[in-house]
C-alpha cells in the first residue's frame, strides 16, 4: 500500500513548530502556489481534490467554501474548530503542537480564497501547549509579513486571533462554536440559516476543522490530482486515525482512506493489548455506533465502507475494546459524559441523556430491573433526530448499538444483580 504522507510529511523534523524549520522543508509552498492564482481557482483546486471535512461530518471542503457568497457588504469570517473534545480524538492536538504552521498556512490560503480578513482559531482551553505554539507561530507570521494588512506583499489583509475555549464539549458543534466566540453560552443554533449565509455576528462564515486545513497547503503545492492518488474515489486522500483503548501502541496514524481496519490494528497498533481478543470497535469517535469484532473483520476505513456497516467514520478516532471490557460500564461512562455535556436547550437531550445515564447506572451497579431494557429502547427514538444538534443522537449511538449486539451482557447484569466484571464501585463520586 504505497502512499505519501500529506499531514505528517514534515513531522520527523525537530522543532517543526519553528517557522524556519518549516520553511526549510516545503513550508509555505502551498501559499505561494495559491497566491499565484485567483481565489476562485484555489477553491476549484480544493473542490477537485475531493477533500472532505475531517471534523466528523465529512462534508466536501471545496463545496463548503463555494457556499460563501462572493459579493456581500458584510465582513466574512473563517472559524477554525480546534475544540477537539470528542472522546478518543487527539489528532488536532498533535498537529497544533508539532506543526502549527501547516494549519496557519491552510488558514491563510483559505482566507485568500474566501476573501476573509479575520479568522478565529478556537482552541480548547485544556490544550495549553497547542495554544502556546500556535500563538508563537502567529507572532512569527506577523513579524515576517505573512499576516496583517498586506499578506506577503499581495495586498490582501488577514488577522488570526486565537480564541481559547473554556470547557464545553458542545462548542465543537459549529454553531455553538460561533455562539461561543460571540461570548454567549455554547448553545447550537437552528439551521438554516447555515453559517455560510449567517454565521459569526450574522455574517457569512466558514467553519473548518484543523486536520482539514492542514491538508490544504499540500493540495495547493502538489495538486488535487496527486491527492486523489491516495484513498478511494469517494473518500480521497489520507486521514489521521487516532487509535486508543485496548491496543498495544495507541497513537495517531496517517493512512490513506480505505485502509483495512486489520492493517491499522495489526501492522500499526501492534494488535489488541496484552494479546487479548477483539470485542468491538468504535470507529469514529465516541458519538458513533460500536461495531462488533465480526463486523470489523474485513472493514475498510473510509466514509462509505464504515457507513455501510452501520456506523460512521466521524473524526477517525478508533476506540478499541478487548474481550474483557464490560460494554455496560463503558456505555455508562459515555452516557454520563453526554449527560454532563448536554447544553440543556432541548428537552429530549436535557432529560434523555440523564435518564439514559441513570438507567445504565442502576444496571451496572446491581439495581437493574427487567423492564429497564425495554425502557431504554422506548427512550432512544425520542432522543434521536428530535433536537437542534446531534448530541442526543450521539448519546444514543453507543448504547443502542451495544444493546443490540451485546444484549446478553445487559441481561446478565440485571439477572445477576451486578457487573460480572467487577464487584464494586472503584472510586467515589462527589
Amino acid at each position, binding site marked *: 500500500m504505497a502512499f505519501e504522507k500529506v499531514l505528517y510529511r514534515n513531522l520527523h523534523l525537530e522543532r517543526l513548530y519553528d517557522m524556519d524549520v518549516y520553511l526549510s522543508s516545503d513550508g509555505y509552498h502551498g501559499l505561494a502556489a495559491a497566491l499565484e492564482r485567483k481565489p476562485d481557482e484555489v477553491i476549484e483546486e480544493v473542490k477537485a481534490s475531493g477533500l472532505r471535512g475531517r471534523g466528523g461530518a465529512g462534508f466536501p471542503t471545496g463545496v463548503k467554501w463555494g457556499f460563501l457568497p462572493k459579493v456581500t457588504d458584510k465582513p466574512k469570517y473563517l472559524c477554525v474548530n480546534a475544540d477537539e473534545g470528542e472522546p478518543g480524538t487527539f489528532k488536532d492536538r498533535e498537529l497544533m503542537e508539532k506543526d502549527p504552521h501547516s494549519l496557519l498556512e491552510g488558514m491563510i490560503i483559505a482566507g485568500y480564497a474566501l476573501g476573509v480578513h479575520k479568522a478565529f482559531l478556537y482552541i480548547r482551553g485544556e490544550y495549553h501547549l497547542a495554544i502556546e505554539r500556535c500563538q508563537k507561530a502567529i507572532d512569527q507570521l506577523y513579524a515576517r509579513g505573512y499576516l496583517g494588512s498586506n499578506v506577503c506583499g499581495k495586498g490582501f489583509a488577514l488577522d488570526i486571533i486565537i480564541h481559547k475555549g473554556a470547557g464545553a464539549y458542545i462548542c465543537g458543534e459549529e454553531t455553538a462554536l460561533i455562539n461561543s466566540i460571540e461570548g454567549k453560552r455554547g448553545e447550537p443554533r437552528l439551521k438554516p440559516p447555515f453559517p455560510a449565509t449567517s454565521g459569526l455576528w450574522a455574517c457569512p462564515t466558514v467553519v473548518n476543522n484543523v486536520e482539514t486545513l492542514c491538508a490544504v497547503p499540500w493540495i495547493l503545492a502538489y495538486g488535487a490530482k496527486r491527492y486523489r492518488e491516495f484513498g478511494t474515489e469517494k473518500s480521497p486522500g489520507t486521514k489521521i486515525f487516532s487509535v486508543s483503548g485496548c491496543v498495544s501502541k495507541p497513537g495517531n496514524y496517517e493512512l490513506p482512506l480505505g485502509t483495512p481496519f486489520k492493517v491499522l490494528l495489526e501492522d500499526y497498533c501492534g494488535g489488541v493489548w496484552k494479546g487479548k481478543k477483539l470485542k468491538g470497535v468504535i470507529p469514529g469517535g465516541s458519538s458513533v455506533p460500536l461495531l462488533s469484532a465480526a463486523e470489523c473483520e474485513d472493514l475498510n476505513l473510509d466514509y462509505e465502507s464504515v457507513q455501510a456497516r452501520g456506523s460512521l467514520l466521524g473524526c477517525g478516532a478508533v*476506540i478499541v475494546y478487548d474481550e474483557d471490557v464490560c460494554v455496560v460500564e463503558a456505555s455508562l461512562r459515555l452516557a454520563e459524559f453526554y449527560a454532563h455535556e448536554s*447544553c440543556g436547550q432541548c428537552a429530549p437531550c436535557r432529560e434523555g441523556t440523564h435518564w439514559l445515564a441513570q438507567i445504565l447506572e442502576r444496571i451496572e451497579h446491581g439495581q437493574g430491573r427487567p423492564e429497564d431494557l425495554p425502557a431504554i429502547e422506548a427512550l432512544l427514538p425520542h432522543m434521536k433526530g428530535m433536537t437542534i444538534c446531534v448530541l442526543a443522537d450521539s448519546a444514543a449511538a453507543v448504547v443502542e448499538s451495544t444493546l443490540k449486539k451485546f444484549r446478553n451482557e445487559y441481561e446478565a447484569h440485571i439477572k445477576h444483580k451486578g457487573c460480572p466484571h467487577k464487584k464494586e464501585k472503584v472510586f467515589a463520586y462527589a
Partner: protein
Amino acid sequence: MNFKIETVEKINVIKGQYATAQGCILPALYVLEEHEGQVTPEREKALAHLLDVPTYQVAEALSFYTMYNRHGRGKHHFQLCRNISCYLRGSDEVIALFQKRLGILPGEVSADGKYELELAECLGNCDHAPAGILGKEDINDLNCDKLNALLDKLGAPHGV
C-alpha cells in the same frame, strides 16, 4: 473596584479584536483570572462595567463554561480523565488511589488548600491514557506507581 493597569490594557486589545463587547467576555475573563486571580462576584460586576455589557451576560457565560476559577483553586490542581479511552486503560484505579491518599472527592480541595481533584472528561491525550493535567502540565501514561511517585514529590500525605 479597579483593575490593574495590565488587565485593562490587555482587555483593550481584546476589544479591538471582537466585533461586539459581548464577544470580549470569554477572553477577558481569562485575562482577569491571569492578572487578578479568582473570578469573584465583585470582579464579575467590574468586568461587565469595563466591557459595558449587562452583568447577566457575564454571569451567563460563567455559569455555562466550566474552566473559569470562581471558587478558588488548590495549589496543585489535578485533573484526572475518567472518559472512555482512559477508563479502558485503568484510570479508575489511579483516581481511587488519589482519593485514598488525599481523602477528597472530585471537586474538592484538601483542608490544607494544597490539593484539588477534578474529574476531567476526555483531555485529548488518549494515546497517553490514563492521562491528566497538573496545573498546566500534561501528565501522561499514569499508573498507581507513577501517581504515588508524583504525589511523594509534592509531599502529599499517605492516606488521610
